[in-house]
């Protein structure tokens, strides 16, 4: 069991440095996330409050998992802000997968503002018990 919020380079999933070179119309920020790893799978849980399923974009290309999610924080025009602490920025997270992850079997589920991404470890690299003859 390996639990990490800031995975070190030898873990299966690493976050490359963020670089938002593209001219995004809205500010983006990296959401908080945590990774739990077992021999069978890595589970990434990303905090995405104020996000609906429809606004989540999850893409996997050349071992790079890219998550983008827009917030729906807009309030009615008649509401006047008295005090603001919450961010308006959309979310963006990029995670680099290593070749031990079975990227074809990735699943994702959004519930209560948390996106749970399950990345199975390839069968071939899972630890196995060798029976003694």
């Amino acid at each position: 069991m390996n639990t990490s919020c800031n995975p070190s380079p030898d873990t299966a999933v690493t976050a490359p440095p963020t670089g938002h070179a593209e001219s995004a119309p809205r500010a983006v920020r990296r959401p908080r996330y945590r990774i739990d790893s077992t021999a069978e799978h890595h589970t990434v849980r990303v905090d995405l409050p104020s996000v609906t399923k429809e606004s989540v974009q999850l893409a996997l290309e050349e071992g790079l998992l890219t998550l983008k999610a827009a917030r729906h924080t807009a309030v009615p025009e008649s509401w006047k802000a008295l005090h603001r602490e919450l961010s308006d920025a959309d979310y963006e997270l990029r995670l680099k997968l290593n070749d031990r992850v079975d990227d074809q079997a990735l699943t994702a589920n959004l519930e209560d503002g948390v996106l749970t991404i399950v990345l199975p470890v390839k069968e071939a690299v899972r630890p196995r018990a060798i029976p003694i003859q």
Partner: protein
Amino acid sequence: MKLARYPTLPSLTWSPFEGFFRHPFAGTAFDSFFTQGAATHDSPAAGLAVDVYEDAAHYYARFEVPGVKKEDAQIELEDRHLKVSVTRKIQSGDQTMQSELSRIVTIPKGIAVDGITAKLEDGLLTLTLPKQEERKPRVIALN
């Protein structure tokens, strides 16, 4: 409405921006409203951050509480102190870890307390606090 951080986590720290977020009505009749306890979303220990809005008939307080189930959120009102407490349960292998966060909000006078409602959706908790009739703006007809 005063917002006071309610430290429940050992790592919870006070924001260096304390007092920065003075609401536009500070010093007016709404002086008791949201003048302290501001958290910043950039702080990893920001706790329960809140946005507050108003319209003609209501105040609204919104908290981001990702991963919190309806049954794990508690809202208590005692006198004018509204305490919002949430428990987040995180499954890690065969263990469940819990983290608790809370925030006390001192609500302004003139709230119809029986009409306060709360909604939890997509990790966003919205409290709606109706103003009492005499607090609502009204148009006085000229004779």
